[in-house]
């Protein structure tokens, strides 16, 4: 039964209200105006007054436009046909391909029973030493890239998308600059990864409400593929835009803001998305790699702050490099014991030495005397930054470990590294 209402009582921002009967919370409706049709979803019921958020925005909607309730919540089509396709935040094709309507699944479904989760145990190789060696990405992990705007985070994401050993990549773009959208498209096409990628893209010029839908729609599809045994990597860029659109709607709805205008449920809203990362027992997995731009490089801003409490670590992107300090992968311990026997020791040893290098650098800049040891550290630090931290370096984990040993051997004697003797015997480069 589809009811049509022709009197819209109020229009404020992207939210309209209409007096209607028998409407269910979160149901979809179609708003038809002379500018075209748009979907809308019910976000509040108060007696007969139904508030809806209009996906295409409130602009141009007239009080005399018609609202038709569909009687079901937001859904997305799920099938193999999604592969290689590009959609917008409400699931409409962006690529001139046919609209998909078969096998519709609801979005924003229930959360996974913690008793059914299993411990993460598989590494995802990316070819980036700062990730593979020092903060390994693990299947079913949820990890954001904390970045200042202007850093090449989207380049990094597209590189990871191309190199990561997963079955399927879903890219959820929120408030993406059109250039960045093209960058993803081109680099994936060039890399031949397009056929195993699905795009859900909201660009900066699209309506705000669609931005809010991108994570849900991407993750609902990812979850279904994972249940079918696929290993899915979901890239979400940029979650700060998502949070900002939550803020916009909350304020339109006269909600009391909690911190810098963000709604009080920001933590829960972010968590319910990130927690979709999961390893299903006996099926596939969902891994989430997000981007959170930090306004003003401020990690205490509500969005990165709440994100940090939710995710299992973070990558700090600064000056075009992943910073070893502040970056953390909480799950790396679960996998780096099985890669190569020198992985953990080398990782810790090199970071400690790099920390010592930073101290030496500080001493130098303060004009204090430099000892022999300090000069060695300075040389080490430079090599470390060139051969490990530079994002242009693209080598598999084993090569990266070997390269680590070479750097150590170039700068230090074995006993200066604080590494156990048996590993030194096994891996210290021999002089020919």
């Amino acid at each position, binding site marked *: 039964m589809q009811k049509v209402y022709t009197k819209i009582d109020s229009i404020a921002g992207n939210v309209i209200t209409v007096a209607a009967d028998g409407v269910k919370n979160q149901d979809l409706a179609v708003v038809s105006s002379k500018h075209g049709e748009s979907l809308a979803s019910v976000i509040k019921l108060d*007696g007969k007054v139904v508030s809806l958020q209009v996906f295409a925005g409130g602009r141009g909607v007239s009080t005399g436009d018609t609202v038709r309730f569909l009687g079901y919540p937001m859904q997305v089509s799920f099938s193999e046909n999604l592969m290689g396709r590009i959609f917008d935040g409400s699931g409409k094709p962006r690529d001139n391909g046919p609209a998909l309507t078969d096998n519709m699944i609801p979005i924003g479904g229930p959360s996974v029973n913690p008793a059914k989760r299993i411990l993460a145990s598989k590494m995802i190789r990316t070819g980036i030493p700062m990730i593979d060696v020092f903060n390994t990405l693990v299947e079913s992990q949820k990890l954001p890239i904390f970045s200042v705007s202007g850093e090449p985070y989207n380049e990094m994401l597209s590189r990871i998308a191309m190199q990561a050993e997963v079955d399927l990549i879903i890219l959820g773009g929120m408030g993406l600059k059109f250039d960045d959208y093209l960058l993803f498209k081109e680099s994936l096409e060039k890399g031949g990864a397009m056929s195993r990628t699905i795009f859900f893209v909201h660009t900066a010029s699209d309506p705000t409400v669609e931005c809010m839908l991108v994570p849900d729609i991407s993750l609902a599809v990812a979850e279904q593929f994972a249940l079918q045994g696929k290993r899915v990597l979901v890239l979400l860029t940029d979650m700060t835009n998502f949070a900002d659109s939550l803020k916009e709607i909350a304020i339109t709805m006269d909600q009391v803001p909690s911190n810098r205008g963000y709604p*009080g449920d920001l933590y829960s809203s972010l968590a319910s998305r990130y927690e979709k990362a999961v390893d299903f027992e006996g099926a596939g997995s969902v891994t989430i790699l997000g981007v959170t731009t930090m306004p003003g490089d401020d990690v205490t801003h509500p969005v990165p702050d709440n994100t940090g409490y939710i995710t299992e670590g*973070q990558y700090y992107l600064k000056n075009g490099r992943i910073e070893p300090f*502040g970056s953390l992968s909480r*799950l790396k311990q679960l996998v780096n014991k099985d890669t190569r026997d020198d992985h953990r020791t080398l990782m810790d040893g090199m970071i400690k030495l790099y920390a010592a290098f930073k101290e030496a650098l500080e001493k130098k800049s303060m004009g204090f005397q430099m000892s022999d040891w300090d000069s060695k550290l300075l040389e080490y630090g430079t090599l470390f930054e060139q051969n490990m931290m530079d994002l242009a370096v693209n080598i598999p984990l084993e090569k990266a470990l070997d390269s680590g040993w070479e750097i150590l051997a170039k700068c230090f004697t074995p006993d200066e590294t604080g590494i156990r003797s048996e590993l030194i015997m096994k891996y210290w480069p021999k002089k020919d």
Partner: protein
Amino acid sequence: MAMNKGTVVGINGNMVSVKVDDDVSLNEVAYIVLGETRVKSEVIRIKNGIVSMQAFEMTGGIGVGDLVEFTGEMLSVELGPGLLGKVYDGLQNPLPELAEKCGFFLERGEYLKALPRATYEFTPSVKKGDVLRPAEMFGSVPEGIFDHKIMVPFSLKPDDYVVKSIVKKGEYSNDETIAVLTDSDKKDHDLTMIFTWPVKKAIDLYEERLKPVDPMITKTRLIDTFFPIAKGGTFCIPGPFGAGKTVLQQGTARNAEVDIVIIAACGERAGEVVETLKEFPELLDPRTGKPLMERTIIICNTSSMPVAAREASVYTAVTLAEYYREMGLDVLLLADSTSRWAQAMREMSGRLEEIPGEESFPAYLESVIASFYERAGVVRLNDGSIGSVTIGGTVSPAGGNFEEPVTQATLKVVGAFLGLSRERSDARKYPAIQPLESWSKYKGVLDDKMVENTRGVLFRGDEVNQMMKVVGEEGTSLNDYVIFQKSEMLDAVYLQQNGFDPVDSSVSVERQKYIFRKLFTILGSEYALESKDAARGYFNQIRQKFLDWNGCQWGSDAFSMQEKELDNLLNEKFISLSSENEKILG
């Protein structure tokens, strides 16, 4: 009694407004009927005849005019044998059983019995004609390592009850009547092993509340020695993300010397709960030799699970803790994290359009936090035995800034503050408890003067370090430099503890006392050191020897050999012991 019914008139997020004709009480549980599905919710406000309820599940698909059924009961938990080792959600739904029924996802409207039907060997402890009062025991069943007391339901009104009949020793199902009591109005009450209690009401059926004095050993040196926690006391662990709150909590849950540990994973990552879930059945409790899971209950309402149930989860956890306290047991409740619980209150408060307080937390935040921590305590029970509930809560302050409402409200009511610092965790100094700012009001297991004196070394070392950042190493006197080296060594060998090392991860009190004495002597001694390089080198050596010593099994040959090596090293340059330290050592 006919069931009280109502109809939905409005929905805003997880708040549902309902119109009712009959009487409704605050905190009453109601179900919103959606065909086959029933969504549990709780009454949180009644205003102008409209009842506001928070739904414990998602509200999608609910519409105006839907039927609501009121139960007439407050949100309650089931108490009885079989709670230990269970994994519940915030409303006491057993999660593994739910998984068996529904598969991967938490489907809406699925509620299972908290204590499934099972049989236990019941041993009566009273006979016909005996007089009992609520909370007095009338028998017991074995549960894990101890006897689970079967008590007269706490919810019966205070009265003298005469035992009319009681079953003989034997196997009984937990839902079978095992005793009948007659009250003073000659009304009979059938008792089973299970009864219910409303979660938001503290269980106060004890003789008197005592001052917490006995230390609760956590086997973490920094806590037991410097910031001790008392059985029946409260403590909080605030810290920015990634500082190791959860790891510290997990370690405490493993090592704490208590009878029962209840973990309330409140609005945190599901992955961490999974770690506990997979680990605890494998790990053995050193005190009993049984798997740790047998003394643990997990209440798990992770961040993606509905918010209202998150608010309920800490109450569910503390009610279970109080129940076991009534049996004369020591219970530790770890709530991770209380900030998420406070945020759940904030979300609800916002939907109720209450006037917001600081950072838009509700104005009653402080009193709610205080009354939660006040449910901890040592009590002397009616039968003279002593039981305790210790509460430890982590706080996740926004931006790592302790000046925010939840941290401040918590600090007002707790007895110990273990503040974690980003600086220390960045430097991989674990546990990252900031030793200069944390405090505890409880008495520890070590000599107070020794501890005080040792903290003094930390403070002076920190001063020297600050100064050195300005004037450089060359501008610092040798004496000051030695103090700095001593405090660095103290930090490395005693404050820091390797959580992954089998020996170092849990240190017994005897061992703490022993090595602390040794450390105290080192800190108070003067050594023949002619230059800063010599000082740095020497203390590095001591540090290395001490760290190796920390890795030796207590009481083993390796332990005494390593100690001898350390002593030899110390004797090499020893000159004299300061008179103050000598006096304290006695």
